């Protein structure tokens, strides 16, 4: 049976989650810099990064071919490739893997689009359980302001325009992000996500994150450490 849920790999997997504009990617790259400077071997894994599936996803987005179900399944396909290629091998080798968005992104988005909650969770049963998953929570208004100032034009699926919630892109985006945030909130206890208040100063959030991450690190994960016998 292919299921990595209860792995015993020597590596560590840390993931960041949260709505668009919560600042999670910034925090993850700061964590990356720190771990690198501490001498750990660190790998980065991003959402939508499988070279094999990327072309299909891009084409489907451009031609608007997705339904909620195929959107969900193709992202799971991409994630499976990521798992098999980018996540398991470094974990087996004892490295630290940092993932920008993980299965919780799919749970939040797909359920917001109307997919069955239990079905989506079953779909991702093969995923490796993270060492710790950080949920960067920003109130809806903050996240929307950040996105609006950073990106002039919202993309069709990003704004949830496929769902016919509203003809207005910004309005549709707000509705979609609201539903996503509700899903994240309900997942906090279901999956034991570590909550970080994303309205705090960046360095405060980073300090909290490093504190938690360092609990799971051991000297032997360091690159320069002598090879194990």
């Amino acid at each position, binding site marked *: *049976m292919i299921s990595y849920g209860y792995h015993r790999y020597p590596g560590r997997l840390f993931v960041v989650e949260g709505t668009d504009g919560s600042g999670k990617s910034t925090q993850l790259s700061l964590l990356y810099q720190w771990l690198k400077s501490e001498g750990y071997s660190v790998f980065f894994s991003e959402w939508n990064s499988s070279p094999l599936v990327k072309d299909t996803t891009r084409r489907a987005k451009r031609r608007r071919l997705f339904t909620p179900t195929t959107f969900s399944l193709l992202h799971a396909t991409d994630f499976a490739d990521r798992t098999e290629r980018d996540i398991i091998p470094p974990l087996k080798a004892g490295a630290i893997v940092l993932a920008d968005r993980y299965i919780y992104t799919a749970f939040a988005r797909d359920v917001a689009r109307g*997919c069955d909650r239990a079905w989506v969770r079953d779909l991702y049963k093969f995923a490796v359980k993270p060492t710790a998953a950080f949920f960067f929570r920003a109130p809806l208004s903050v996240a929307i302001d950040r996105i609006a100032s950073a990106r002039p034009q919202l993309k069709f699926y990003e704004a949830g325009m496929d769902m016919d919630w509203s003809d207005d892109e910004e309005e549709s985006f707000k509705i979609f992000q609201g539903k996503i945030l509700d899903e994240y909130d309900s997942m906090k206890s279901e999956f034991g996500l570590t909550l970080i208040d994303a309205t705090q100063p960046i360095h405060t959030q980073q300090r909290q994150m490093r504190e938690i991450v360092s609990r799971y690190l051991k000297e032997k994960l360091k690159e320069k450490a002598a090879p194990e016998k």
Partner: protein
Amino acid sequence: MKEMKFYGSALPGIEIEPYPGKLIVIEGTDGVGRSTHVALLRTWLESAGYAVLDTGMTRSVLAGRGIKNARTGHTLGRLTLQLYYATDFADRLENQILPALRAGFVVLTDRYIYSAIARGVVRGADPEWIRKIYGIALVPDAVFYLRMPSAEALARRVLATGRGFDYWESGMDLGLANDYYDSFIAYQKLLLKEFDRMSGEYGFHKIDASRPIKRIAAALRRSITPLIQEPPSQTGEAASPATVSPISRIPPPATPSAEPLSAEAELREKSA
């Protein structure tokens, strides 16, 4: 009219309503003659005045090309490939199969979820997990399982067609044996076992695929005739009389089955 029934939770955003069409599945391992029989049935149905849509694995607009490209390079992980197939299936279900059934077509599908489940399980997928993913599938009106008595008989059949053994049909990715023949036999044996297991679970109509083509075709037609002639009023209690119509008898197109893609494109437009 038949009620829409799914194996698991229905697709999101799909209106559950009775449909006038028929979903007929031709299943079986590689090389049993599925596509031959789909083609024969299509001609037969169309000349009797039934509108037909035929579809099969990896023929989706969304994922078909991606899967083919990835398979050519043999570079997909096992899990990734299985989910890619599921994506392909969902796209065809939502954009080809369901619209055609609603429009009163007879949908003939060369393989359905059962092949995907068998391939997945043989490659180490959790049988329960993969069945849950395919819970989005509509329960077909009939599943015909073309069954060869043994993997060896299947190998002879494949050789007789003169095309030799293909990498995937031989399950070379599984590393079961060193050469194509031994691998083909070992792989097809595993698949047969999975198909036989599903036969009872999903209520397959078993057909001995070692018989002559003509006799198999006749057996298929005999079983399908009562299905498509079913009086519509029996199950149509939920539908108002105005919406109840027998399977549409559309005259066959001028060039039947010459360009199946155009029919699918047409359906896509109608459903949009």
